[in-house]
C-alpha cells in the first residue's frame, strides 16, 4: 500500500473504486430512508419502566452489558498498546540482536508564560470539569451520560491542567496510579457479573433488578441478600401516566463507576505518556 503509487494508474483505479463505494452507500441509504425495520428495539423500550428511565443506558449497560464489557476492554487495550509503542513493556529476544528502540523524549509544553489571571481562571475550570464528570456518572441511570462520558470529561480536565500547569497539574496523577485505576475499573466491571453467574449461570445477570426469575425455565431463585446489596441502594420512583412505578437499576450504577475508572485510567495514561514519554528507570525510582 505505497501511497505514492496511488498517484498514477492505481490512483485512477482507487478513485473509481471510491466512486462505486460512494454510489453504493448512497443508494443503500436512499433505500433505507423511511424503511428502517424496527426489529427488537421497541421490546427494549417496553421494558424500560421496569428498570431505569434512560433506555439507552439500560441497553448499553444491562441488556447488552457484556458487549460493553468488551468495548471497555477496547479502550483499555488502546491505552496498553499505545503506551507499549512509546516504551512501556517493549520486549527483546535474548538471543537475537535487534534494532534499538528509539526512546521518546518529554514534551515541553511552552505555555508556562500564561499570565496569572488566566491561571487562576483555569484552576477552578479544571476542578469544575472533574466535578462535572463525577456528576455525570452518578446520574447515568436517569439522564444522559454514563461511565464513558465521565471518564472523558475527567481526562479532558487532566489534559487542560497538564497544558496550563505542567507538572503542577491540579489533577496530578502518577503513572502507577493511572495503570492501577484503569485495571481496577475493568476488573470491577468484569467481576460484577460474578454474583449473577454464581446464582443463575447467566453471566452478568442483573441480580438487583431481577426481572426474569419468575419466568418459567429460569434456573434459579435470587436470594434476597443480593437484592439488598445490589438493588435497594438504587431505588427509583418513576411518575408516569400509568401511575408511579418503583424500579431499580441494579448493578448498572456500579458498572458505570467501573467503566468511569477504567476510562479515566486509560485516557489519562495516554495523555501522560504522549506528553512525558516513558522511561523504565523513572518508574523504578518512583
Amino acid at each position, binding site marked *: *500500500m*505505497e*501511497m*505514492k503509487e*496511488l498517484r498514477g494508474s492505481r*490512483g485512477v483505479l*482507487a478513485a473509481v473504486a*471510491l466512486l462505486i*463505494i*460512494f454510489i453504493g*452507500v*448512497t443508494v443503500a*441509504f*436512499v433505500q*433505507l*430512508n*423511511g424503511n*428502517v425495520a424496527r426489529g*427488537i*428495539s*421497541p*421490546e*427494549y*423500550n*417496553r421494558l*424500560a*419502566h421496569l428498570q431505569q*428511565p*434512560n*433506555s*439507552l443506558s439500560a*441497553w*448499553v449497560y444491562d441488556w*447488552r452489558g457484556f*458487549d460493553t464489557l468488551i*468495548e*471497555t476492554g*477496547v*479502550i483499555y487495550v*488502546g*491505552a496498553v*498498546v*499505545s*503506551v507499549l*509503542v*512509546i516504551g512501556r513493556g517493549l520486549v527483546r529476544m535474548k538471543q537475537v540482536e535487534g534494532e534499538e528502540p*528509539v526512546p*521518546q523524549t518529554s514534551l515541553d509544553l511552552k505555555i508556562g508564560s500564561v499570565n496569572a489571571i488566566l491561571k487562576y481562571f483555569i484552576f477552578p475550570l479544571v476542578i469544575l470539569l472533574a466535578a462535572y464528570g463525577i456528576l455525570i456518572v452518578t446520574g447515568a441511570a*436517569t*439522564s*444522559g451520560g454514563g461511565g*464513558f462520558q465521565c471518564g472523558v470529561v475527567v481526562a479532558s480536565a487532566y489534559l487542560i491542567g497538564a497544558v496550563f500547569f505542567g507538572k503542577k497539574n491540579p489533577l496530578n496523577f502518577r503513572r502507577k496510579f493511572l495503570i492501577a485505576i484503569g485495571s481496577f475499573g475493568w476488573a470491577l466491571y468484569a467481576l460484577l457479573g460474578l454474583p449473577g453467574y454464581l446464582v443463575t449461570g447467566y453471566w452478568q445477570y442483573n441480580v438487583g433488578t431481577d426481572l426474569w426469575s419468575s419466568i418459567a425455565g429460569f434456573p434459579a431463585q435470587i436470594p434476597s441478600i443480593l437484592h439488598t446489596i445490589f438493588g435497594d441502594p438504587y431505588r427509583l420512583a*418513576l*411518575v*408516569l*401516566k*400509568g401511575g408511579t*412505578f418503583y424500579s431499580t437499576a441494579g448493578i448498572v450504577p456500579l458498572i458505570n463507576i467501573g467503566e468511569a475508572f477504567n476510562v479515566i485510567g486509560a*485516557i489519562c495514561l495516554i495523555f501522560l505518556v*504522549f506528553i512525558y514519554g516513558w522511561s523504565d528507570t523513572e518508574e523504578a525510582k518512583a
Partner: protein
Amino acid sequence: MIELTLQFLSFMASALLILIGIAGMLFLDNLIKKIIAFTLLSDGVNLALVSLGYFEGGVVAILTPGTSVAEFPQNAVLIFGPGIVLTNIVIGVSTTAVLVALTMVLYKRYGTLKASKVLKGERK
C-alpha cells in the same frame, strides 16, 4: 421525488463524510492528515447509525414524568443505532491513540510524516 426529511438529510451527510474520510485516508500523503480523515470517516459512520433510529414524530428514549408507558415503545427512537455509536466512538478513540503513537515513534526514526517515505518497504 424524495422528501427532504431530517433522516434523509443526515443520511446524505453521512455518505458525504464517509466519502471524504475514505478519500482522505487513501489519497493524502501526510500521516496526521490520514488520522484526521479517519476521525471524519468514523463520524460519518456514527451519523448513519444515529439516523437509523430516528423517525418523524419520535421522542427521546428517556422516560420523563408523565410519559405513557403504553405508547413509549412505539414513540421512542430506536436505541440500537445509538448504542452502537457509543462503541464506535470508543473504538475511534483507541484506534486514533494507537495510530498517533505509532506515527510519533516512526517520525522519531525517519524525521518525516510522509506516508510514502515512512512506509516504504525495505525488507532485509
